[in-house]
């Protein structure tokens, strides 16, 4: 990955600025670094942007035994191999200086955070580990043998509670002493270790050589700028590795750091088995095991989506808003108002006609879509906040491998349930082109976005058999298409690993905040588009174009066993998926669709062409040829599946 390096204030010598002693506080966000910074500096601090970036860096002064040191609070980072600009800035600050590094970790999460301390040890700088938030660790049942940890790690370790000042005196003494002593770098084992040694050997005794060698192996452009190495040496180093792709190297290095951290922490860090830990472990086990995980998923889908979104949101709330509010009061009032004050029929038609901006556009947005999407967002936020989604990704990993993807694809596919357009772009997280093509196709074909899914749930709520058949048909098409693509598309499949954040009881505040944010943004996005849709329909009606287009597609509707009026919903659906679903909703309420027609229209609309926004994103990500080919296949498939489903249901005499 090519990284831009910020401008240096002076020319770096082997990556470091000489002179003034500094103390760098390094660690993840939310470990108490800033509290520690304030406690150490306790007076005047300067906050400034790192040159050429928007990242703020705080600097303060620490007086120790007559000497003044500068304390730098580096931006929060999760790894020395950066992904964000904040992490790049933090790493560049460390590479430029000889200062003491204070690695601050949250003591109760030491197993997760110690790997970064091992990375820091490879910089060859004086290093101190601060296990902060010891009070919380104790409360969580953690026992930490600080002396044993220090012995096994080879660096001084101090336990602190920065908010109370506990441990700070000891830390200051260590800083004073450690200013002259460099820590021992962690040596990576195996082929990676051999590769690192090969490159480090060429860096002529530079103290950060092992770490810079790691960066070279990962193809980091910063390493090439700070400490260039001959390409032949890099090639010789990579020859040690079975898979020299930067992403594979990075994954392997992370694994080695985690393994070493586990070895160090054995018998040193003991997590007491409290009732809440046991509970979490049991639930984790259930969610990750497919034998229990799939039934749990089925329950989540039934209760969360079908009952809450489909029945409560889609029927109860929509029924009240649409019938009792809009159709009974708001629309008649608006029509009367316009009849009284607006003499021009064509303008009245624009605003309060059958497809009027106010009588249809706003009504769709407020009475139909908002409650359904709102309840979907609420249910989704609960799942998010609990930590369930990454476990779902892990559980589905094996299944996804059958369709040529891996658990990592859960990210764009889950995103697709939010917005397929963004999800299509997020297929970039998948490592190979093959996976990206498969994921893009499946997103366009069989993953309904949140707008659409909420409405379809509302449409089918109260028809459990139809709902079950809808899920079965769409999931079946998803799996069959994916399997066929996996079989016939050339290319390798990438591995998947993911760090699981802890499970937690969803916080009501977080859930409500996320839901309100999503609903607020959604409303801002949807209302203008629905108004625009109404205006376009009005223009289409005036010019006679829209009725012609509807008439042209009616034969297709009849072939699907649907009334001609359904063609409007499908045409709307290309513009905006939820608009199309809302059109079907109207037909259902008017009694124009029976159970079988409801199912056929829901399945066909789900599998239908992507909306315009997603279409454009596909074109951007995959190019015109692939996009048009995919769209053609999708359209044909959607109509074929709808037709076949209708025939099967009619021939079998099933009523829903």
């Amino acid at each position, binding site marked *: 990955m090519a990284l831009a390096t910020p401008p240096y204030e002076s020319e770096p010598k082997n990556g470091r600025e000489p002179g003034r002693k500094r103390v760098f506080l390094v660690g993840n966000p*939310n470990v108490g670094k800033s509290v520690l910074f304030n406690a150490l500096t306790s007076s005047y601090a300067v906050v400034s942007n790192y040159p050429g970036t*928007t990242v703020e860096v705080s600097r303060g002064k620490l007086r120790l035994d007559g000497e003044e040191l500068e304390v730098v609070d580096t931006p929060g980072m999760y790894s020395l191999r950066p992904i*964000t600009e*904040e992490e790049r800035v933090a790493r560049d600050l460390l590479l430029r200086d000889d200062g003491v590094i204070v690695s601050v970790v949250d003591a109760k999460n030491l197993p997760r955070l110690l790997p970064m301390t091992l990375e820091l040890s490879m910089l060859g700088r004086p290093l101190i580990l601060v296990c902060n938030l010891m009070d919380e660790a104790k409360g969580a049942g953690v026992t930490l043998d600080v002396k044993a940890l220090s012995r096994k790690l080879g660096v001084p370790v101090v336990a602190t509670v920065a908010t109370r000042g506990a441990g700070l005196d000891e830390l200051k003494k260590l800083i004073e002493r450690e200013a002259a002593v460099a820590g021992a770098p962690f040596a990576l084992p195996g082929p990676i270790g051999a590769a690192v040694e090969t490159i480090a050997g060429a860096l002529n005794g530079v103290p950060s050589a092992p770490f810079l060698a790691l960066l070279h192996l990962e193809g980091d452009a910063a390493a090439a700028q700070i400490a260039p190495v001959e390409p032949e040496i890099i090639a010789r180093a990579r020859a040690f590795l079975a898979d020299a792709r930067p992403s594979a190297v990075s994954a392997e290095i992370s694994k080695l750091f985690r393994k070493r951290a586990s070895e160090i922490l054995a018998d040193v860090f003991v997590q007491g088995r409290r009732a809440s830990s046991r509970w979490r472990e049991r639930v984790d086990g259930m969610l990750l095991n497919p034998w229990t995980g799939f039934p749990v998923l089925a329950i989540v889908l039934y209760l969360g989506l079908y009952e809450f979104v489909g029945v409560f949101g889609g029927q109860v709330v929509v029924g009240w808003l649409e019938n009792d509010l809009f159709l009974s009061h708001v629309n008649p009032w608006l029509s009367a108002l316009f009849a009284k004050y607006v003499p021009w029929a064509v303008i009245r038609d624009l605003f309060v006609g059958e497809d009027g901006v106010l009588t249809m556009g706003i009504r769709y947005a407020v009475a139909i879509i908002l409650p359904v999407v709102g309840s979907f967002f609420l249910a989704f936020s609960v799942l998010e906040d609990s930590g369930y989604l990454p476990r779902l990704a892990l559980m589905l990993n094996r299944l996804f491998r059958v369709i040529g993807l891996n658990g990592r694809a859960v990210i764009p596919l889950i995103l697709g349930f939010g917005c397929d357009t963004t*999800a299509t772009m997020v297929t970039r997280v998948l490592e190979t082109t093959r996976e990206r093509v498969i994921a893009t196709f499946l997103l366009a074909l069989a993953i309904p976005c949140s707008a659409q899914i909420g409405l379809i749930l509302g449409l089918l709520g109260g028809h459990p058999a139809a709902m079950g058949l809808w899920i079965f048909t769409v999931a079946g098409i998803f799996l069959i298409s994916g399997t066929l693509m996996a079989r016939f598309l050339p290319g390798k499949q990438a591995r998947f690993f993911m760090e699981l*954040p802890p499970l937690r009881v969803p916080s009501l505040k977080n859930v409500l905040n996320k839901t*309100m*944010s999503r609903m607020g943004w959604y409303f801002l*996005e949807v209302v203008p588009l629905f108004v625009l849709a109404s205006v376009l329909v009005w223009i289409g009606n005036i010019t006679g174009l829209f009725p012609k287009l509807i008439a042209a597609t009616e034969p297709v509707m009849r072939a699907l066993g649907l009334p001609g009026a359904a063609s409007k919903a499908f045409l709307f659906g290309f513009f905006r998926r939820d608009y199309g679903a809302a059109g079907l909703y109207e037909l259902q309420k008017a009694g124009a669709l029976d159970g079988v027609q409801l199912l056929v229209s829901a399945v066909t609309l789900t599998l239908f062409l992507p909306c315009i926004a997603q279409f*454009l994103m596909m074109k951007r990500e995959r190019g015109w040829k692939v996009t048009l080919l995919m769209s053609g296949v999708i359209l044909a498939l959607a109509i074929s599946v709808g037709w076949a489903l209708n025939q099967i249901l009619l021939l079998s005499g099933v009523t829903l």
Partner: protein
Amino acid sequence: MIECALCRKMFDPKSIEAQGACQGCSLIGTGCGRVRCPYCGYENQRPLKDARERFKKLWRGFGHAAPHGDQ
């Protein structure tokens, strides 16, 4: 800073990396209100206060649709 809903890592939605994830999206400037986590790629919802700021800008008649995280 916001917490990613999937991986729980913290990131700044206004940072260049998060903005970079939105570059090239056909929804940019339309106010979709999402921002991608630079660590795991998961889309997160921007805080609602950003929606209010965006609405104010639109109301004031800024013609150019600025990218997400506009300063």
